[in-house]
């Protein structure tokens, strides 16, 4: 026992740099591409604890795909992947602009994180179910969901599949394995586990995927999800998209003293991996590994995607108030589109010229979809969902009190 205890000190983590400072990620250890071993999917999670502290990478600085995680995609599939990411980026740019033009109230973009949802989707099959956040629209784009439908939802127009009830980007499509986005953070992580448990209870073959951001892992729902996944060995992949920021809050506030977010899985005995989220090939390889574990009844996998949110949190946010403007340029894992593009060029499958041409084609396709969507209205102009739609769908059958209210509203 100390006779003269010294005063305690309160600790609050702070990011390395704030606006005005020079961005510096030299403290972020980046393992060489190809350097992380690829265990068999039936490995005992206790024997791969180091994977929760490393970063699985396939594409190196020279644009080569290297190491044991390379080779999960055909040339065709890689070209398609590039196109998906480019499409998502163009879609974002157009919708961001539409919001600025007052055609909708709100938008959230994926800039810098396109590889995560686009590549993950390619490891899923029809019937699997994602429980996404608002930053996984690549699941829809890469899953072939019509862009017009997405835009109809964003515009809350007369063709909005969600009848104007939901905030823009909070899509829902059962057919496309895309659970209804809530907007309340992390609530759906545990629901993904529940869905997976149901699939196991029924002896089905489908698996579920939960999605959460770095910041939102702090919610208790996250921990509930890990307990249930661990206890019932649920056929679920639990994804954490660590894009370094949660609005203005750097990832250190949610991560605390644990070295990585993936390491959260270790105490639960869940297989936990970290992957370069800006590397389409690495994301796909890890997604394949984790989904195969789930499909083969080997239990849950927790995956942390190390990436960077290049854009603002949403159209309501201005990041220059809390991080250096040039921070994204200093991000050591580069840009997912450019990295895959360079790889394909190096392999002779692609060229700058074809890239430019593809950009133009994609833009044309997105604009065509946008025109079609806008012909059905935008938030404040043209066709819109009815007031009647507002009263419908609260219950399967409208109870008398709501019917009275609807009548009072005169609709």
């Amino acid at each position, binding site marked *: 026992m100390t006779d003269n205890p010294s005063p305690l000190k*309160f600790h*609050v983590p702070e990011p390395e740099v704030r606006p005005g400072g020079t961005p510096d990620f030299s403290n972020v250890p980046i393992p060489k591409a190809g350097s992380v071993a690829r265990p068999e999917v039936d490995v005992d999670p206790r024997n791969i604890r180091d994977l929760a502290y490393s970063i699985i990478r396939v594409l190196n600085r020279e644009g080569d795909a290297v190491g044991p995680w390379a080779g999960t995609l055909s040339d065709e599939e890689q070209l398609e992947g590039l196109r998906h990411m480019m499409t998502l980026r163009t879609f974002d740019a157009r919708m961001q602009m539409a919001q600025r033009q007052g055609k909708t*109230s709100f938008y959230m973009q994926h800039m810098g994180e396109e590889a995560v949802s686009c590549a993950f989707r390619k490891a899923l099959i029809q019937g699997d179910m994602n429980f996404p956040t608002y930053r996984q629209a690549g699941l829809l784009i890469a899953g072939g969901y019509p862009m017009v439908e997405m835009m109809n939802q964003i515009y*809350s127009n007369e063709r909005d599949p969600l009848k104007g*009830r939901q*905030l823009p980007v909070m899509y829902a499509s059962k057919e496309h394995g895309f659970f209804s986005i809530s907007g309340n953070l992390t609530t759906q992580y545990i629901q993904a586990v529940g869905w997976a448990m149901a699939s196991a209870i029924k002896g089905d073959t489908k698996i579920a995927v939960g999605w959460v951001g770095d910041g939102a892992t702090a919610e208790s729902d996250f921990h509930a999800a890990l307990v249930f996944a661990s206890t019932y060995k649920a056929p679920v992949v639990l994804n954490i998209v660590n894009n370094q920021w949660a609005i203005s809050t750097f990832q250190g*506030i949610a991560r605390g003293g644990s070295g990585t977010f993936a390491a959260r899985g270790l105490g639960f005995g869940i297989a936990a991996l970290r992957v370069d989220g800006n590397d389409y090939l690495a994301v796909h390889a890890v997604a394949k590994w984790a989904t195969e574990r789930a499909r083969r009844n080997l239990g849950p996998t927790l995956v942390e995607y190390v990436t960077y949110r290049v854009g603002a949190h949403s159209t309501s946010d201005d990041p220059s108030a809390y991080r250096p403007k040039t921070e994204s340029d200093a991000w050591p894992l580069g840009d997912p589109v450019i990295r895959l593009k360079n790889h394909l060029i190096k392999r002779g499958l692609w060229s700058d010229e074809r890239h430019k041409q593809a950009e133009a084609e994609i833009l044309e396709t997105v604009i065509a979809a946008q025109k079609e969507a806008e012909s059905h209205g935008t*938030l404040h102009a043209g066709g819109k969902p009815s007031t009647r*739609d*507002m009263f419908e769908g609260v219950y399967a059958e409208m109870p008398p009190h709501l019917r009275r209210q609807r009548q009072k509203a005169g609709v």
Partner: protein
Amino acid sequence: MPRMTMIEAIRSAMDVAMGRDDDVVVFGEDVGYFGGVFRCTQGLQQKYGRSRCFDAPISELGIVGAAIGMAAYGLKPCVEVQFADYVYPAYDQIVSEAARLRYRSNGEFTCPIVVRMPTGGGIFGGQTHSQSPEALFTHVSGLKVVVPSNPLDAKGLLIASIEDPDPVIFLEPKRLYNGPFDGHHDRPVTAWSKHELGEVPEGHYTTPLGKAEIRRAGSAVTVLAYGTMVYVAQAAAEETGIDAEIIDLRTLLPLDLETIIASVKKTGRCVVVHEATLTSGFGAELAALVQEHCFYHLEAPVARVTGWDTPYPHAQEWDYFPGPKRVGEALIETMGA
């Protein structure tokens, strides 16, 4: 006197409280360095340091639970929940813990915390940025519930809440942050700088909890309102030409029943308005109290104008929001009865 928006007044309240009492601490999501998504805590970290104003992990349960622990130690935490729509993870901490601590420990432990949160709609925020959950808190014994409608009150009420020995749920109508919005969404809103209630003393003062304020004296019908609906009711009175007496409740719990009774006994009619859904809303409590205390003075049934019993929609925001037209219709109907 300085002019302040409601955001500035709320910030000033925390500033004054922190300046006077080292035990006041402020935290929440994005609250520290950035100063909150609505900027209510801007500059407080710089002024009082990271131990007094700091960012919290995204865990409303954690924020409120930690605040309760700090309060048990002897601090006076004033925490922010980013939107009232996100308070539910903290509901257990508020209902089972904060509200009952004094009672169950017979005063051995107490819980002088304030939980601030933006409430209400009108910003096209859809179902997760628009809710008005006040009735979920007025239903709980041990909580006080405050809803200011202007900068002057917001500052006085927030300082009073921070200094209060019991837990206070402080709901800030976000549509009023920058001006007295009256429900006419197609018209510009007057800035607080041009409104008399935007004149806010720089230093310390309190507005007592449990005191309503008559915003418009009238003789024909009493309107019970709080937050944004105060201005909607004012617009409805002007537009219908009905001489309504509009009472801004300011605190729902404790409630200023005296002012309500005196007014309803005078007018003989009462319309209750709130943005929150109808069924089991705070309006039901008000209507019950009015009939209990003023039954023999009433010349018409107590009417309620509220949000519909649906989740808050996105596109149909203005069909949902109980605007001046609907309030005006209720005034006319109540007068005709």
